[in-house]
């Protein structure tokens, strides 16, 4: 690998200071499962790597009445095993349980997955479905943005020089809600999503009608995104195959799939509909408990 320096600050201020001082050639490190590979292959250059795992704010993991706080560097294995996440934010648990194998999950973080801004990132559609807010700290202070606005293109995000993701915040989940993330991959594990769908639904008390829904799509456009039409189509509608098929069709209508080594345009088009329906149904099942 090309030569670089390494620091492991223990405070946010020190981390931001290090990242700012080195003028953009510094790279933040959480689990390293993307960064180290990218530095090795020369896809990313770095003069300084700033390890964020010793900063307490980035390792927060709390579920309470105010919702979920998920530190940006918390490794996947702590997430999918967490009872509060399993119960209320299961789409995040679903994602964290399928990012790479066991060895990757012991290192990789949801914050890193988001920051990497891959079009096929497995956790991002789940974050979108669950209305995450991204808490960002940098040289000019702290700001918060909705997760839907974080990615701006393949490998591109809104972070300015010296900024890092500190944590992801999620609102508390209403009663009769459920969420799910699923992806299509050619093998049964270890692949990058060809299509990824995250969905959360809120049902009425009867469990027979959608109150609201949020669907996030991955790997079918330049960045993961909130499928607004597909989500809104479900609000106020009865839970049945016809409604859910409409959501699937609406999801297909807003994607911009490409043909690559993971799948064809035709495949992504078709499977976006199929998977959207399957994921919404599973979220409904969970909402009904």
């Amino acid at each position, binding site marked *: *690998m*090309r*030569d*670089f*320096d*390494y620091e*492991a600050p223990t405070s946010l201020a020190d981390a931001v200071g290090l990242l700012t001082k080195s003028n953009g050639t510094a790279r933040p*490190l959480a689990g*390293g*499962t993307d960064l*180290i*590979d990218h*530095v*090795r*292959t020369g896809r990313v250059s770095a003069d300084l*790597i700033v*390890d964020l*795992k010793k900063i307490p704010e980035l390792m927060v993991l709390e579920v309470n009445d105010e919702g979920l706080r998920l530190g940006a560097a918390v490794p996947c*294995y702590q997430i999918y095993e967490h009872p509060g996440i399993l119960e209320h934010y299961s789409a995040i648990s679903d994602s964290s349980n399928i990012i*790479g*194998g*066991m*060895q*990757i999950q*012991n*290192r990789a973080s949801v914050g890193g997955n988001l920051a990497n801004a891959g079009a096929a990132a497995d956790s991002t559609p789940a974050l979108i479905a669950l209305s995450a807010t991204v808490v960002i700290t940098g040289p000019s202070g702290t700001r918060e943005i909705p997760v839907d606005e974080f990615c701006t293109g393949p490998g591109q995000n809104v972070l300015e020089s010296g900024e890092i993701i500190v944590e992801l915040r999620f609102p508390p989940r209403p009663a009769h809600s459920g969420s799910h993330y699923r992806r299509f991959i050619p093998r*049964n*594990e*270890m692949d990058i999503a060809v299509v990824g769908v995250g969905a959360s639904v809120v049902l009425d008390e009867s469990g027979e009608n959608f109150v609201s829904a949020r669907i996030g799509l991955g790997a079918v456009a330049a960045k993961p995104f909130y499928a607004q039409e597909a989500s809104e189509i479900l609000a106020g509608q009865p839970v049945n195959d016809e409604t859910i098929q409409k959501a699937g069709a609406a999801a297909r209508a807003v994607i911009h799939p490409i043909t690559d080594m993971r799948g064809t345009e035709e495949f992504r088009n078709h499977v976006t509909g199929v998977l959207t329906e399957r994921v919404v149904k599973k979220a409904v099942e969970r909402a009904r408990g």
Partner: protein
Amino acid sequence: MAKKRIVTATINGREEEFLCQPRQTLLEILRDTLSLTGAKEGCSNGNCGACTVLVDGRAVNTCMVLGVEADGTDIETIEGLAPGDGLDPIQEAFLGNAALQCGICTPGYIMAAKAFLDENPNPTEEEIRFAMAGNLCRCTGYDKIVRAIQEAAEKRAGQPASCQKETV
């Protein structure tokens, strides 16, 4: 050139101190600096699991960990697994079930299996296959590896609890 760091870690129960450039992976340090060549480099990007060791009880791909990140950790490699002159039940099960052909994936497989069985001592076949998907083997078709891990779980269950590591 970035200056070398002194890194201290417990490796197979012994405290080790080594010099490390920031750009050196833990795999490179284990293999080239510490001569622990049991961890293998198969893919260099976290897809094959041949470089698996346990860091603080959890399986990681050392090709994707920087050596400097190991400071203060407790590392267990394949070289430290066998007690005295015998073999660990997982090692015995791999031999008894002919669960290796060329053997290059075997150290990584055994370490991943250990981490997994420490956490899930009584797994189903499905759970074994899901957990081990990050370890590629090109020779065996996995049949005998899965059987070996099943047998190792049974053997370990028969041992006194003190021999088993606590669940992390």
